[in-house]
């Protein structure tokens, strides 16, 4: 069964989640991956959206972080201050799922500006929940499309702390959570190296050459000693993902959710 690079990325990210996880979900690729996991191999997963929906089971993907579908299918819905204070800062979330406009080799993220903060070339949406999601969730998964302008040597702005500018700041700052432990792209899977916390390629998606990863990474990306091949998406995984997108497109009356 043929599939797209984005489908491979979403399914590879979904596989990293388990029924035991309590997951803080962002809109877009994270939301698709989390819901595929819930519909496939992780039916017990608890999905939490920052709008306040706890243990939500949407039948279609929300366009926004606060679609009615999330509240209607949730176990309970709390206020936004309660969400950030008791549930996130309180340390009750196992996985935070994030993306961004730029990532560096230590999993730090920029979603604030391209260019200088005072005179930005591109003003991006900003931090939203990401800064504290990355600090308080037990670990963080990052999902982003590979591109040399997105995988950069130096971020234009550090919105969200991964392992820090040198890979060591997290511990120095007394942050006890693990930080980013997984980076899934449309080309490969990357994990932080034990000593340095630098993200290295641990698996290539089927048909992807090392050269492609090198060309699409702004820093001199390294490969783990043993690089595996990601298992291709199964027919049932693709079916679940595509049905989810088809239901979503019908519900929203658009094709915007076609990723």
């Amino acid at each position, binding site marked *: 069964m043929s599939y797209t690079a984005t489908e491979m990325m979403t399914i590879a990210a979904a596989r990293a989640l388990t029924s035991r996880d309590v997951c803080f979900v962002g809109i877009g690729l994270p939301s698709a991956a989390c819901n595929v996991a819930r519909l496939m191999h992780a039916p017990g997963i608890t999905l939490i959206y920052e709008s306040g929906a706890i243990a939500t089971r949407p039948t279609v993907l929300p366009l926004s972080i606060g679609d009615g579908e999330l509240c209607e299918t949730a176990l309970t819905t709390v206020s936004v201050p309660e969400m950030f204070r008791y549930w996130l800062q309180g340390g009750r979330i196992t996985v935070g799922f994030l993306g961004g406009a730029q990532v560096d080799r230590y999993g730090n993220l920029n979603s604030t500006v391209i260019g200088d903060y005072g005179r930005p070339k591109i003003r991006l949406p900003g931090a939203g*929940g990401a800064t504290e999601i990355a600090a308080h969730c037990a670990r963080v998964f990052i999902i982003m499309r590979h591109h040399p302008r997105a995988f950069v040597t130096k971020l234009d702005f550090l919105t969200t702390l991964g392992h820090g500018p040198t890979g060591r700041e997290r511990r120095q700052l007394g942050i006890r959570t693990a930080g980013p432990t997984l980076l899934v792209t449309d080309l490969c899977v990357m994990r932080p190296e034990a000593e340095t916390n630098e993200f290295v390629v641990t698996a290539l998606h089927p048909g992807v050459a090392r050269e492609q990863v090198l060309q699409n990474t702004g820093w001199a990306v390294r490969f783990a000693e043993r690089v595996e091949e990601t298992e291709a998406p199964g027919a049932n995984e693709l079916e679940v993902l595509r049905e989810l997108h088809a239901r979503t497109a019908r519900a929203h009356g658009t094709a915007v959710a076609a990723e």
Partner: protein
Amino acid sequence: MPSSLSLAAAVSSLIHDGDIVALEGFTHLIPFAAGHEIIRQQRRRLTLIRMTPDLLYDQMIGAGCARKLIFSWGGNPGVGSLHRFRDAVERQWPHPLEIEEHSHAAMANAYAAGAAGLPCAVFRGYRGVDLPAVNPNIRFLACPFTGEPLACVPALKPDVTVIHAQKADREGNVLLEGIVGVQKEAVLAARCALVTVEEIVDDLGPRSPNAVVLPSWVVTAIAEVPGGARPSYAHGYYSRDNSFYVTWDAIAKDRARFSAWIDEHVMNGARSPA
């Protein structure tokens, strides 16, 4: 008991040029009709506060109402950029926009501090990131008991908070249901509060004893505005017009097209200024 006013009269009497105004709503119950009335009455130099300035603030910024924005995430959810917001920050159109930027956790805590009558909010956050370097209102203090460095931001205290809710009764008690966001805190943090509602009813009806109810004596004015949250949604009344959020991207991208849209859909809208 709050005054029951027309929307035009409520905006005219409560919101003045130069005020600090929060129109809150976390995707749900966004007070679009009230924001459009503020545009129609051509309020200027407002400091706008909102966690998630979305299409409504894009429209208010593009229409020239805002001098400053205090926010934590400025995008079109699930779609992309806010082009009017970007044009103001990147190219100072229609005029420069000062920004005070936070994270969601900081804004939520700052509203809660405002509601609690505290001067500032204390929380665990902002460690190792760049925002404190560009926002002097983000500071750190040591916990007096453990020494742990904690983030500190000033409480949010709007002159006026504007929200939309499902119902009010004839005494002016307000009921909110569904994703309730930060609206209760935003109302209690403000000097005065304007609430638009889908309907004014004799009785708020069957509800949980723990439902989010704003008692009449914390609300300054109520205006009945059916559909007042469109194109966002009102749980139990109508759903989110997701296709409009997608359409907005192209409208807002172009200054002339945006201005024409404001003229047609807001300035010449059904509700004329008082």
